[in-house]
């Protein structure tokens, strides 16, 4: 799978690139996401994982971090036409 994460193109976001979100009601701050993808995830002071603003991941790495989250708290934000980056 192509892991090129270049977002400077003129079309919608690269097909391989996804945005992730954390279900804050079930995250208990274990930190597996922070270990795998420290540029994207940060465990905040309330011990809840937070996605760095604007951070995206190639689909294969996103799938890995979703799969490895012990709490099952991470998912992909569905891409709507309105919020694709310009």
């Amino acid at each position: 799978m192509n892991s090129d994460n270049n977002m400077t193109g003129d079309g919608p976001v690269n097909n391989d690139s996804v945005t992730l979100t954390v279900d804050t009601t079930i995250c208990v701050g274990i930190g597996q996401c922070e270990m795998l993808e420290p540029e994207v995830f940060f465990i905040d002071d309330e011990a809840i994982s937070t996605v760095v603003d604007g951070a995206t991941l190639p689909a294969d790495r996103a799938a890995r971090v979703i799969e490895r989250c012990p709490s099952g708290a991470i998912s992909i934000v569905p891409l709507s036409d309105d919020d694709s980056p310009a």
Partner: protein
Amino acid sequence: MASESSFVPDLTSPAQYVEAIPYETMARLRAEPGLVWHPYEKSGFWAVTRHADVKAVSANSAVFSSGIGHTNLWDLEADALEARRSIIDTDAPDHTRLRRLVSKAFTPRNIRAWEATTRSIARELLDDYVAAGGGDWVEMVAAPLPIRVILAVLGVPVDDADYLVELSNYLVEGTGDQPSLPPDAFGNTTELRLLPFGSPASHALFEYGEQLGMARRLEPQEDIVTMLVLAEDDGDKLSHSEYRNLFHVLIFAGNETTRTAITHGAMALAEFPEQLQWLREHPDKIDQAVEEILRWATPVLHMRRTAAVDTELAGTHIAAGDKVVMWYASANRDPEVFDDPFVFDLSRESNPHFAFGGGGSHFCLGAFLARMEIQIFLEELIASDVDLRPTEPAKRIGSNFVHGVLSVDFEVEARTP
């Protein structure tokens, strides 16, 4: 409740663990259709031995409860369960509250702050071990390393390390079949059934935690114990019983399990020196070496859950109230997931082991601390430029719960270039 199979397994008799984990019984259980009902005391439990099934149980804490009954095999009376209830034997939302209180201190980012401390402790212990030409690895390296690190992380005086190792040793003994302490040891007056592991050493550890908590109230420090007693004083964040049991878990789980991993790791490197040589030649593969040591060691052999409702797993009907026991030791040797599972292979790339549990919200709090300690142990062992040579077989603990080793001797041999 009986299963179709006429096979009557025995994973629980503690004595067999002195020789080895009953891997053949586990292999037979994995090959059975569905789950097998394993007799235990007056009733029994569903033995969950396949990797996929352990994962499914771990992921579903609403159905497979940690708070109904408790997470060890045996039953506890209601008052004992309440007195002994820790973060391990708790369901959401209480578990979520407790976990978030301590999670932050154990995240990968925050654990990295302890790397230099850990390395200097490991360096000192290994230097002494090499200078002595070897000796009992458990006493000289594997026990002191994690206890000193967890004491530093928690903010417990390091001078008390030996005492806390002694208490931990008695607690491990409490999981086996031959506890040696009299009920009134350490001035204990509490009924043993109300104490974790039924051990008077738990009373001593509670008392120690109480005194340390009082000291931190008088003189707050930047440490976890201070954070916990402040949370307790805050009212609804942490009850006093929760503080006692959480302190107990942090000390016990923070040293006993990593001790076991470092011991089995050293035993495997002594038995298979070509693996250590491979790691010397591939220092960039240290992360996967750490994971293989974790898989190989599997410090905690099982955890129990209790079905909260009627459910089904692997085609087997499970009734509400049935005990369901996940055998991590079996999942970590499941050939469906691991090629040649009985081969110790530091070059193993895919290694979704369950040394920290099968996932879910109870995933080991200290996972990143343990990984860092094992990594530093490996790096410093390589820096010592020695091989470990086995001299006699390890003395293993007769426990079906922890994969503990009482003592194991090695000789240190300088490497010949």
